[in-house]
């Protein structure tokens, strides 16, 4: 299943918060390779640096040292605008909580990403959105607002928002934390399908040990250090799909 060349490489990433006596090292020379179609789980105790690692490799938080190479681009050596454009084209995110606009329907939450992000025409955005909602099993709920949806349905909308643009990378932070296991399993299944069927590189940060059997690889982070650090490979990166 794993490809030879990684789509994303983190090389010796370090990040410290605060300074002097109160300085906290969140990441300490973390190296990591992720591959196209891979469904990876990043685990670790609270405060181990999981979210910081996710933020650094996804282009949201600048590391103090190290490199992030995504599809051949050094994410922290390009401009803010280029990084934003990269995220727009290649990255999907699922955060803790659903973070859905209360006033918008499930359909509008997804359409918005296509219309604002890609400038997709209304009809195209509507068609792609309806396809995604169908895939998520939400066709009949398309017209409902967040307050009318269950927690599981809201999380599926959030996943749809992350996957609607068919990203190369999907980063998810505790996507099952607010759900019972039946709904949590559905969510994980959706993310696994994205990896299997679309070749998306999926990295999930979670405390939930029940996910472990469902993923391709488990990474453990403790005190900012990967328990079994991955060797940084020198081979070429995957090209952009």
């Amino acid at each position, binding site marked *: 299943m794993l490809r030879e060349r990684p789509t994303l490489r983190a090389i010796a990433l370090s990040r410290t918060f605060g300074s002097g006596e109160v300085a906290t090292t969140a990441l300490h020379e973390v190296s990591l390779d992720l591959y196209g179609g891979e469904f990876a789980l990043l685990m670790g105790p609270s405060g181990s640096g999981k*979210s910081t690692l996710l*933020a650094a490799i996804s282009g949201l938080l600048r590391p103090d040292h190290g490199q992030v190479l995504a599809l051949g681009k050094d994410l922290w050596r390009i401009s803010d605008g280029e990084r934003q454009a990269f995220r*727009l084209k290649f990255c999907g*995110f699922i955060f803790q909580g659903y*973070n859905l606009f209360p006033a918008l329907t499930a359909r509008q939450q997804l359409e918005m990403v296509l219309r604002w*992000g890609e400038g997709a025409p209304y009809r195209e955005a509507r068609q792609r959105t309806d396809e995604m909602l169908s895939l998520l099993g939400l066709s009949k709920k398309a017209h409902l607002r967040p307050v009318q949806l269950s927690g599981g349905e809201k999380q599926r909308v959030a996943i749809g928002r992350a996957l609607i643009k068919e990203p190369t990378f999907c980063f998810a932070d505790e996507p099952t934390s607010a759900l019972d296991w039946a709904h949590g399993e559905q969510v994980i299944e959706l993310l696994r399908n994205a990896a299997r069927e679309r070749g998306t590189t999926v990295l999930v940060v979670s405390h939930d040990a029940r996910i472990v059997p469902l993923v391709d690889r488990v990474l453990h982070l403790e005190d900012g250090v990967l328990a079994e650090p991955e060797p940084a490979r020198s081979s070429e990166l995957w090209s952009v799909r």
Partner: protein
Amino acid sequence: MSYSLATLWYERHRYMPGVLAVGFSALLIALQCGLLLGLFSITSIPVDHTRAHLWVGAPQTLSVDLGRPMPESYLLRVASQPGVEKAEIYIQGFAYWGKPNGGSELCMVIGSRLESDSLGAVKELTPELRARLTEPGAIIVDESDIGRLGIKGIGDVAEIIGQRVRVVGLVKGLRSLAGPYVLASINTARPLLRLSQEQTTYVLARCRHKSDAPGVVAKLRDFTSMTAFTQDEFSLRTRMHWLTKTKAGIALGCAAALGLLVGAIVTSQTLYAATAASIREYAVLQALGIPRWRMALTVLAQSFWVGILGIAVAVPVVLLLTQGAEMVNAPLQLPSWLLALAVGVTMTMAMVSGLAALRSLRLVEPATLLR
């Protein structure tokens, strides 16, 4: 429906203060300006209620009530201008009205010709009233000024600078600001204003076509011993003089600015709070790479709709109050250009509020979603 409009409707309770603030600002601007316009339109009634296309007076005449004596012979100059169909003299000036029971009151005496095609007789003077004014010493006043002049009605006698005058009729709708209008014939008015037979205050003229008036005025301005205006120019000049002389314009400006400021602050804070409440959602969009300007556009679209809704609330209220003002005879004027101006200023205020609310987008930081 756009996302911003959908949000506005769904969270209408949140946006309501902004909508009401915009509506209040629009209402305040429209009514204040309308009242002022109505109030100062009273000052130009002698110009607006007569048929003259152009007014010629002494040099540097600031407003119709500040006319000064000039030779009646200027009538010929005006009448001989190509394009002028008819010209006549018109006298006007302040005088003291001696009340029958003592005391005095400043009044504005207007003396005009009284024929049916007279240029200077105000339109409120019916043929019957004009006929009555031909009697020596006959005058007509507005019925609303009876109390102010200390008389009871038709037939009463009073004095103006010692000259006896008799009220032979009453008109309606000839409101005054500085002093009640006293309408009379030229012959009656002259001595009341201490003018000689060779003097007049204005020469009025009517052109064959009203559009000829500016050309005639331009030619008459070559004469340095007099000054000429079209009817519209003189009307506006009179109102503007009163507006600036009484400093009412400054008062209006301050009150309107205050209304606008309150409206802008409330609207801006409403939009700021609404945007700040959705900061996590915006942060997700930014993480997904959607540019910040796109979100800024949404905030501006919301400010646009808040402006539109505020105006939609204000306009019916303004129209209702205007009708109410008409019923109680309050001097409120609301021409369509003034309504358009109020709408324009208010919309600008709403959009500026939206721009000020954009600072809330600085709070959007996607990395915070991962803590």
